[in-house]
């Protein structure tokens, strides 16, 4: 499986090429993902002298996190998947951090300006207080690409036209 992994849910863009067990990862801290994501992918392709159609799996983080950031990653991943007919898999940002950690009774927390996205193996919610979740052990928010790949092996791809963002938080207009 040659996998292209894209994560744009927060200010750190992560792109990985996974060829068997060889991982080639680059990260960029960016305030404008539109300026950085595609140049980063292009540089990596050139550096490794490979083409996008050398991949046979795309894995993209679909949120929660920055709404705009998620959409940039998803649009790029969907366009590649659709045009080159490569199966696409989505994983939530909370799940990606959770599967990267080995601790027990674990919880992942992603903060934003007004509250917290909380994820465990059983649920994902948005809350303004962590008071109710004291019994859980917080994971470090770090990605372990190989562990994420092991998790992806256990799930099914998504129809490219049906790829959805995982916003978790409900915006005012949709309440």
């Amino acid at each position, binding site marked *: 499986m040659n996998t292209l992994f894209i994560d744009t849910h927060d200010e750190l863009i992560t792109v990985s090429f996974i060829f068997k067990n060889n991982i080639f990862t680059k990260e960029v801290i960016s305030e404008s993902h539109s300026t950085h994501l595609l140049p980063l992918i292009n540089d990596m392709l050139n550096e490794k002298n490979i083409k996008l159609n050398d991949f046979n799996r795309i894995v993209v983080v679909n949120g929660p996190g920055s709404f705009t950031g998620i*959409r940039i990653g998803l649009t790029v991943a969907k366009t590649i998947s659709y045009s080159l007919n490569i199966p696409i898999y989505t994983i939530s940002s909370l799940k990606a951090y959770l599967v990267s950690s080995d601790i027990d009774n674990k919880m992942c927390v992603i903060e934003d300006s007004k509250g917290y996205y909380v994820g465990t193996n059983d649920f994902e919610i948005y809350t303004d207080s962590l008071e109710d979740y004291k019994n859980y052990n917080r994971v470090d928010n770090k990605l372990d690409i190989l562990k994420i790949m092991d998790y992806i092996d256990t799930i099914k791809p998504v129809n490219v036209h049906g790829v959805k963002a995982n916003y978790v938080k409900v915006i005012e207009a949709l309440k």
Partner: protein
Amino acid sequence: MIEEIKINEFDTKYFIKDIGYVIIRKLYEHLDITDVYINEDKRRQGYAYKILKYIIDNNSNYKIMLEVNEINTPAINLYKKLGFKKISEREKYYKDKTALIMEYSKDIYILAIESSCDETSVSIVKNGTEDIATIINSQIDIHKNYGGVVPEIASRKHMENITIVLDECLKKANMKFEDMDAFACTYAPGLTGSLLVGLECAKTLSLIYNKPFIKVNHMLGHISANKINNTLKYPLISLIVSGGHTDLIFMEDENNSKYLGSTLDDAIGECYDKVAKILGLEYPGGPNVEKLALSGKDTYKMPIILNDESYNFSFSGIKSHVNNLVHNEHQRGNEVNKEDLCRSFQDAVTEHLVSKTKKALLDYNVKYLLIAGGVASNSHIREELQKMCNSINVEMHVPDKKYCTDNATMIGAAAYPLYLKGEFATLDTNAKSNENI
């Protein structure tokens, strides 16, 4: 197996042994096809096509031309199939018969994306003027519930729909991404979150297929809607009337334009929508105001709008006037006659548009007026501008209604001259909410 042999300094013979040959003459940047001959028993088997195609493919830097007898239909059809187009005629070149002069020019297909507001649109445009296929997915039914476009919802829908709209467009055109010569999209002005979806998609396609990416200003797109099935005549004045713009632009030629004036406050489409809201009409209000005005009479007195020497517009005063009028009537316990009010309002803003546009045409002595933007689909405004143009002997062009509201065809039309000039954008291009042409 095609072989080539140099005859002299200028002439080269391309041939297939025992089949036939083509002789060409190269002079500076010109390549003339001077002779085509296929052995009689080998004709109609595609050999001439094969040799000529080889010549075209291997001489892409040359301007390739030929002449052909007007009665030689099989040859003319062969040249057309290869992409040659007639550019002129030489009368009685072959004794009493005319020669057609043909030049090779490749057809350019641009796939364009528009997502600046609440329409996801993809179009394939040939040579900047021919609409091969266009798909427009409007989100109006969703935004109607909120009385206007909710930017976050618009962005979400664009992201969900983008590949579906791409797919429908390719299927309608019966083409593949590989057939495209460039990918274009709107990058400004508009709702940033919405713009980003089209932008990232177009940039990604450019990366995948290694074809140029062209960024297009949305307002230039609206003006370029006039290039669809039409050739522009310069100098011209362009009147842009939309939900975000009311501008008068003087264009001396394709590359030189100058802003004459624009709205000092609300755009005309915005004003229509606000008046609709005051009258309790459903979103999108503009077309509903137009509909009611049809059956109304000009009975309400409206203020005279910005009657000055500038080319600027103003629409907030008349909006406030309508608002006050409706409130005063309400307080007196009366209902306004919506049809008559819409008519009076529409007549007043139309008069404002017409008088400023007329002034610009006369002052700059321009004989060609372009109308662009969503409000150009308003029939009353179109008719009144047309009457004014007739009275001062000016030709007016307004796009088909389907190209007035947001669509990707106009983006493809605007991208074509940029393609020819080689004005390509890079993968780090970002969306901009605001930018003048």
